[in-house]
């Protein structure tokens, strides 16, 4: 896990250096916004009567980079013979993704990135105890206004399936979780957007659908080495620019 994070952060440093290069040349101009939702959560809400989850996903196309944001709401209630649990809350995630195939003509993306996530939620737990040694009792524990934050390293794809409609999946490792202080005797069980709170890191999988709304053309690719080749061999003609090594800078 530590090794994965080490390599991931190295890649992120390279990514941010690349972004600063773009910024200096003035080419970081948003060209489209992609808005979507998580299909898996819709399935959970439809088929699991105890759970309701809804998430909106958005990204802004900054050429090789995407500013991403997710907002979600969740409610989970279940009860059994001697206990009942209830959790409701919302979460927001924001970060940046790096597109590994920025040259793709269909604007598909394969990306990796990092997000910061924040969740606020209310939690309550009721239980009854049939005590053979003392006396029977019931206890209700409420934890309103709980908060948690964590980071997510994610990797995924968004593939154009029809016109401006995209399908995507994302695998993510959630780590460095911090939860607000617990003044009750009940251990936090579930954090909206994170999952079960019993582990300091957790991995997740999302299957999403997006609609892309372009508001300007993406800048054309600039062939970088064509000029050098012409200078070296004036008679040589580039056969197909797509075969040359292009640079977006």
């Amino acid at each position, binding site marked *: 896990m530590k090794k994965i994070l080490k390599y991931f952060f190295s890649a992120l440093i390279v990514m941010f250096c690349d972004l600063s290069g773009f910024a200096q040349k003035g080419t970081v101009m948003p060209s489209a916004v992609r808005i979507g939702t998580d299909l898996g959560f819709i399935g959970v809400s439809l088929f699991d009567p105890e759970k309701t989850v809804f998430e909106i996903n958005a990204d802004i196309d900054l050429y090789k980079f995407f500013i991403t944001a997710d907002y979600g709401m969740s409610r989970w209630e*279940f009860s*059994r013979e*001697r*206990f009942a*649990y209830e959790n409701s809350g919302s979460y927001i995630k924001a970060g940046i993704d790096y597109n590994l*195939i920025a040259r*793709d003509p*269909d604007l*598909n993306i*394969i990306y990796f990135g990092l997000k910061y996530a924040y969740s606020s939620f209310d939690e309550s*737990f009721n*239980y009854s*105890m049939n*005590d*053979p*040694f*003392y*006396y029977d*009792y019931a*206890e209700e*524990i409420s934890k309103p206004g709980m908060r948690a934050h964590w980071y997510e390293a994610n990797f995924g*794809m968004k*593939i*154009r*399936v*029809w016109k401006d409609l995209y399908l995507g*999946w994302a*695998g993510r490792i959630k780590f460095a979780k911090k939860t607000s202080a617990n003044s009750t*005797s*009940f*251990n936090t*069980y579930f954090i909206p957007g994170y999952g079960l709170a019993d582990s300091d890191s957790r*991995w997740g*999988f999302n299957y999403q659908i997006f609609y892309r709304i372009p508001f300007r053309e993406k800048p054309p690719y600039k062939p970088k080495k064509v000029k050098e080749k012409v200078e070296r061999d004036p008679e040589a003609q580039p056969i197909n620019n797509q075969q040359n090594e292009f640079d977006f800078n």
Partner: protein
Amino acid sequence: MLDGYLKYIYKLTFYFLICLYVLAACDTTDCITFNTRFVIVDFLDSATGDSKSRQFDLISAQESQVIFYSDTSLSTYYLPVNTELEQSIFLFLNTDQTIDTLEVSYDKTVILISKDCGYDLEFKNLGIIQTTFDSAVSLENELSRLNEENIKIFF
């Protein structure tokens, strides 16, 4: 559109991650815990430090209507704490009809293991508040099935 190498990369990675997700979901929570509500009280000879049986006519606790032990001679007693409160007072009726007390405090945590396993109670930071025994020492401050003793009483 969805064709060429992207189609294969997309399918391959998507199914790979689905498999991983299913495998992770199959990793069900273990319902078994080592938490217990019993304080293990060991009686020792104050001269030698060895375990030594001590006879009581009765052992119970305040707030309890149950007699934990009656007319028993043992060196180790398992005494249940009051799970609603965070302190218990154990009462020991000696053979000469005098009563010794042992008052202990602890922190209780309610842990929801899972929907199917239910909840569990965890007791930590066990300490002796007061006792009428000559000498009592708290050792393991977490109540666990793995413990051999929580409190030593010398007499």
